[in-house]
């Protein structure tokens, strides 16, 4: 197919108008662990699967949900190291905003700047796109917000979204209230409410909620 001849170069369009490297990046995301987010009337919840390569891995050292500012958190599907780099850049951008205006950065502005970084890496020489999609959850003066950012740099606001493996199943996950196989040890949940402080639930708290569901 004509497309495959263009798949070597990130910065060359294929005849069908696609940037094939970005498509591949989205595939990398699609085979990453599931993560999802839901926006409620008074807050946002994001969660992710935390399947580790072996039971010998110390699960407390793995943190897939991270804080970008006191009132904005993020989760990802895809490549963990790429996520770490993006978190670092986003935190710096949020702090730079705060240094200039002494105001916490609005969620839309941070998402826009992070997306701009991801887009840069699709139009520069010698770099590759990030292999992650992000779900950004925040609460600012415009209320609770949930954004998804893709490797191409496009971003969308969602009421609820899922990414990674089994996306369609994940979308029915919370509706069905999946029982039995999940516990505080193999899922991570981050939550932000009207107090505008993003925090990750402890395994004990997750177990409490799961017990309530039963």
């Amino acid at each position, binding site marked *: 197919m004509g497309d495959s001849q263009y798949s070597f170069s990130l910065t060359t369009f294929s005849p069908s108008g696609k940037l094939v490297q970005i498509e591949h990046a989205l595939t990398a995301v699609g085979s990453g662990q599931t993560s999802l987010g839901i926006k409620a009337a008074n807050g946002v919840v994001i969660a992710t699967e935390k399947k580790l390569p072996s039971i010998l891995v110390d699960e407390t050292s793995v943190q897939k949900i991270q804080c970008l500012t006191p009132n904005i958190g993020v989760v990802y599907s895809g490549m963990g190291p790429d996520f770490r780099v993006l978190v670092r850049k986003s935190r710096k951008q949020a702090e730079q905003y705060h*240094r*200039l*205006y*002494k*105001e916490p950065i*609005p969620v*839309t*502005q941070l998402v*826009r700047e992070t997306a701009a970084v991801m887009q840069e890496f699709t139009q520069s020489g010698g770099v590759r796109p990030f292999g992650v999609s992000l779900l950004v959850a925040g609460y600012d003066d415009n209320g609770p917000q949930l954004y998804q950012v893709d490797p191409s740099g496009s971003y969308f606001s969602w009421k609820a979204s899922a990414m990674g493996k089994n996306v369609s199943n994940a979308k029915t996950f919370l509706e069905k209230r999946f029982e039995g196989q999940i516990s505080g040890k193999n899922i991570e949940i981050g939550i932000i409410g009207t107090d505008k402080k993003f925090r990750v639930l402890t395994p004990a708290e997750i177990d409490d909620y799961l017990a309530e569901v039963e």
Partner: protein
Amino acid sequence: MQIFEYNGSALVAMVGKNCFAIASDRRLGVQLQTIATDFQRISKIHDRLFLGLSGLATDAQTLYQRLLFRHKLYQLREERDMKPETFANLVSALLYEKRFGPYFCQPVIAGLGDEDKPFICTMDSIGAKELAKDFVVAGTASESLYGACESMFKEDMEPEELFETVSQALLSSVDRDCLSGWGGHVYVVTPTEVKERILKGRMD
């Protein structure tokens, strides 16, 4: 020759009840010679935020243009006006960027913040903010202005009384300063309207 006294200026901002007033003189001079008697020292950033710049006139003009540019971009990106406190922080950051080759200006910022609360502040030429609850002054006539405002100021003045107070303080202070004067320019801003008035003082 003192660079801050090259053009001459007088600026004052005062807080009233849910309103504020910002006033300046109108003289533009080149040392002892008067060049213009209708110089605008106070500019509007948006309907509820005014910026006055004293000091070297060329720096005042350039600084105003840069700040207006930043605010317009902010408005486009964030789809909202800047709060006065936020703007003051931006001015401070911009001035400090030029710490070792500064703008020779002293800004006075006055605006209505959240819930129509008046906000005033001034800063030195390298961005040291001075927040005040009652009044702030700047320019070659600043020492006289301090005295006049201190004695004439009352808390919670209504817009009309505030206008009278600011005008009297300004006119009496510039009369003691040879580098500022030739009338006054007063803006009184309430949540509903902006009243701009020109004062006629001693035309010297």
